[in-house]
């Protein structure tokens, strides 16, 4: 049977597609340490010039919000339309605003 303590840990890989963009989640690799995780991320996720920079972090280190709390966390923002520029009526002819 597989021994979970022997399996290489899982790392999440984030790739910056080009300068100016933020890093975006690309997938995962197994690796024994950060150095190997970067090598595996490079060899797995940038074979087609997909990136100019990589982040890796142990999957176990990610803290995620609970889907059960989604209502409490995200729905209160729904009625705060005044945070969006289209909420405001500016007369025609007024520019640079």
């Amino acid at each position, binding site marked *: *049977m597989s021994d979970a303590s022997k399996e290489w840990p899982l790392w999440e890989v984030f790739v910056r597609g080009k300068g100016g963009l933020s890093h975006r989640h690309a997938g995962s690799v197994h690796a024994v*340490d950060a150095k190997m995780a970067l090598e595996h991320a490079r060899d797995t996720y940038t*074979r087609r010039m997909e990136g100019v920079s990589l982040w890796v972090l142990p999957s176990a280190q990610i803290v995620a919000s609970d889907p059960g709390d989604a209502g409490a966390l995200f729905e209160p923002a729904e009625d705060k339309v005044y945070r969006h520029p289209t909420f405001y009526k500016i007369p025609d002819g007024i520019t640079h605003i």
Partner: protein
Amino acid sequence: MYTTDMTGKTKAEAVAEDPALIAAFEARVANDEFIEPKDWMPEAYRKTLVRQMSQHAHSEIVGMLPEGNWISRAPNLRRKAILLAKVQDEGGHGLYLYAAAETLGTSRDEMTEALLSGKAKYSTIFNYPTLTWADIGAIGWLVDGAAIMNQVPLQRTSYGPYARAMVRICKEESFHQRQGYEIMMHLAAGTPEQKRMAQDALNRWWWPSLMMFGPPDDKSPNTAQSMRWRIKRDTNDELRQKFVDITVPQAEAIGLTVPDPALKWNEERGAYDFGEVDWEEFAAVVRGEGPVTKERIQARQKAWDDGAWVRDAARVHAEKRAAAKLAAE
């Protein structure tokens, strides 16, 4: 990317689950929303997905072997580089799919062991041998062609990590089918020996390719549930028909003959009528009685066993380094 629907004999077991949760889940899926790893999901959905994604991943990894068989013998430098890149892609795709399945709590090692023990299945197509260079063309053209038909709809599958893996895979695979057809084109237009090689490969790979879409709809009892869950988006027979309709003209265009005497254009249906797949053969290959099933599993087992000391060494090295770093602090 290669999926074969091998459901039909597995039944999702009934577990007592909150009907309200199930109803909410079904509504989300029906609404084409994505399900994410931490979301509540019915146990049967989780199990079906793990099975489907791991089968899919295994198919990629085992699928490296028949084509890998010709990397060392590719006929020129360009073909060698293309083939190596393609087989490498398949390894990458297996990796993406294992990772997607791992989000549901099954480790890659567990999945690997299920493959090696024969508990887990993979696409039947890879249990056929690659005998000549033309087989590399036929696999790219037919097998990848069939796979693309299976996988394009899966980019919209309900499970988020699976759908995202499929998007990446589909993007990367776009060259796979083309390179295969290009090989066949060259052979069909080449010397008589080359043309014979191409026709022979088509003869051998045609029917196994049709089997890749899985059993006929009336013998695929889980199809309805899988379609409702959006982990399958078209029926097996629909996709098979589509594949035949697209592929036959491609064969004709390069002067090759599809090995099916019953093949005939049906004006009324606007589609090809074609002969019956040998479902007995399909069932036998699913059972593990394919021509080279033993060789495929033996190769995977050998890679796994031979690699054990490497995996151990890297892990032990990292533990030593971590301990040394801790001691130094």
